[in-house]
């Protein structure tokens, strides 16, 4: 079998004395939706940041599609096919929805040292952006200023920006956090539709979403992955239950 799409070995990151991630090993094969769960402060966002290239690890290495990407920065990794959403919604608030997505298309179509033609008039940027917006259900919101979109729509927009880069790996940091029931169901449906077509690492506290979407789950506590397995295996794991005392009921 081919090497997993993402291979992580011994990835560590400390903030001061705090080990936010501690010798993390993880393999995610192509096509899998892999959830990472764990209590607040477990190091999930830190792990996503290290995968995306925003945070330099203190130790360890990351291979993506057979290539060692440990030393590569976020823009370079994006161009290799890694895309992410942020735990705290991160969009270009003072641009319209379609501008946001068109920028993502632009970032992946050669250099931008083009000084004359209005970017908004370029069909090569506009058309794919509109198509992606449509696919996440924001087709009729294209010309709305991103800041004026509802919270759930902004999260959808983030997914659209990620998809517009045609990623092989999608890193999602709590995509349904802060959403109402209906909004979060819509997001789960959207992500379910991507399942299998793109590899996903999903950090999420919402257990309904996790158990609906995940092929496998890793449990992180104090910076370490204490268990990895299918949803059934993780559900039955005693150590996971102990770590999750307060949230046992939902598990």
């Amino acid at each position: 079998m081919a090497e997993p799409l993402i291979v992580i070995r011994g990835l560590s990151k400390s903030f001061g004395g705090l080990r936010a991630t501690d010798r993390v090993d993880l393999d995610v094969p192509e096509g899998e939706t892999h959830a990472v769960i764990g209590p607040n402060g477990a190091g999930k966002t830190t792990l996503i940041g290290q995968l995306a290239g925003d945070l330099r690890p203190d130790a360890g290495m990351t291979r993506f599609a057979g290539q060692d990407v440990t030393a590569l920065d976020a823009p370079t990794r994006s161009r290799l096919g890694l895309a992410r959403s942020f735990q705290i919604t991160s969009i270009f608030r003072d641009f319209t929805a379609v501008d946001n997505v068109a920028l993502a298309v632009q970032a992946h179509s050669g250099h931008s040292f083009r000084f004359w033609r209005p970017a908004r008039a370029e069909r090569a940027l506009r058309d794919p952006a509109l198509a992606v917006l449509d696919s996440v259900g924001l087709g009729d919101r294209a010309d709305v200023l991103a800041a004026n979109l509802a919270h759930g729509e902004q999260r959808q927009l983030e997914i659209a920006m990620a998809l517009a880069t045609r990623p092989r790996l999608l890193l999602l940091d709590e995509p349904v956090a802060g959403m109402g029931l209906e909004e979060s169901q819509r997001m789960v449906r959207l992500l379910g539709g991507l399942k299998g077509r793109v590899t996903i690492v999903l950090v999420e506290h919402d257990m309904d979403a996790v158990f609906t979407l995940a092929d496998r789950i890793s449990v992180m506590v104090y910076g370490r992955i204490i268990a990895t397995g299918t949803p059934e295996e993780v559900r039955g794991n005693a150590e996971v239950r102990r770590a999750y005392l307060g949230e046992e009921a939902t598990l």
Partner: protein
Amino acid sequence: MLHRSRTIVMAVGVLALALVPPAAAALNQPFYVDLFRRMMIFALAALSLDLVLGYGGMVSFGHAAYLGIGAYAVGILAFYGVDNGFLQWSAAIAASAVAALVIGAISIRTSGVSFIMITLAFAQMLYYLGISLETYGGDNGMPLRTRSQFAGLIDLRNPYAFYYLVLALLVLFLVLGHRLVNARFGMVIRAAKSNEPRARAIGFSPFRYKLVAFVLAGGACGLAGALLANQTEYLTPEFMHWTRSGEIMFMVILGGMGTLFGPVVGAIVLLGLEDVLSALTEHWQIILGPFLVLVVLFAKRGLFGLLPGEVLRDG
């Protein structure tokens, strides 16, 4: 796409600027040709700063450095007998662009207060360099031997010819700026200003785009410096003093950051107020100060930004 009311104001503004010389002649007040030419030269400097500040989100607090470099390039060449304007102005643009390349390469990797302090420090360094250049008059500066010569194409000693050349250059840079901020290049620097981590996450490496914007702005401001040297027919290190950088920045903020015509409005209003108020009272700064504070407080997008039209969409 520009919002209608802004397009109208811009067109009327340019037209009004074109009518200043005949109006001044009719009123027998040639002084106004001089004043408005000065305003337009500073408008060009402010416009170049706005590319960096308003569109690129880089708070460069040393923009007067490029004004000074441009002026000194003209003055020093003239000092050695090189009066050819094509040479002088090319040198002004090239020298300030190179300075911007060095300063930008060092400062752009930082942000916030560090960025402000580094750009300010470089400008102050150049200011003191100007003071130490005894050959060129030290802190007194020196007169420009003669205005730049353009092989008989245009005579800058003719105040009207000089005026319309400055106006033409200003309009040219407004057009270039409009293309640039709405092209792919402009979208990148505006995206990086809006949300740099997001811009990086979708695959942009903003550094080189910001650096190029910084260099283009430096070069354009160098040209403004070349014009200023011809305007005052004198050059002094004062051109590079930090208060001058502050003044240019104020023009941008007053007129409207992240708009193209805003800096033009800002330059005209600020220099116009200085002129009117200083004629009324010697304590004019006491009146000007509070006025500026009020504008910043109540018109956050600046005077031109008060007009309808979303700032970022309407480059």
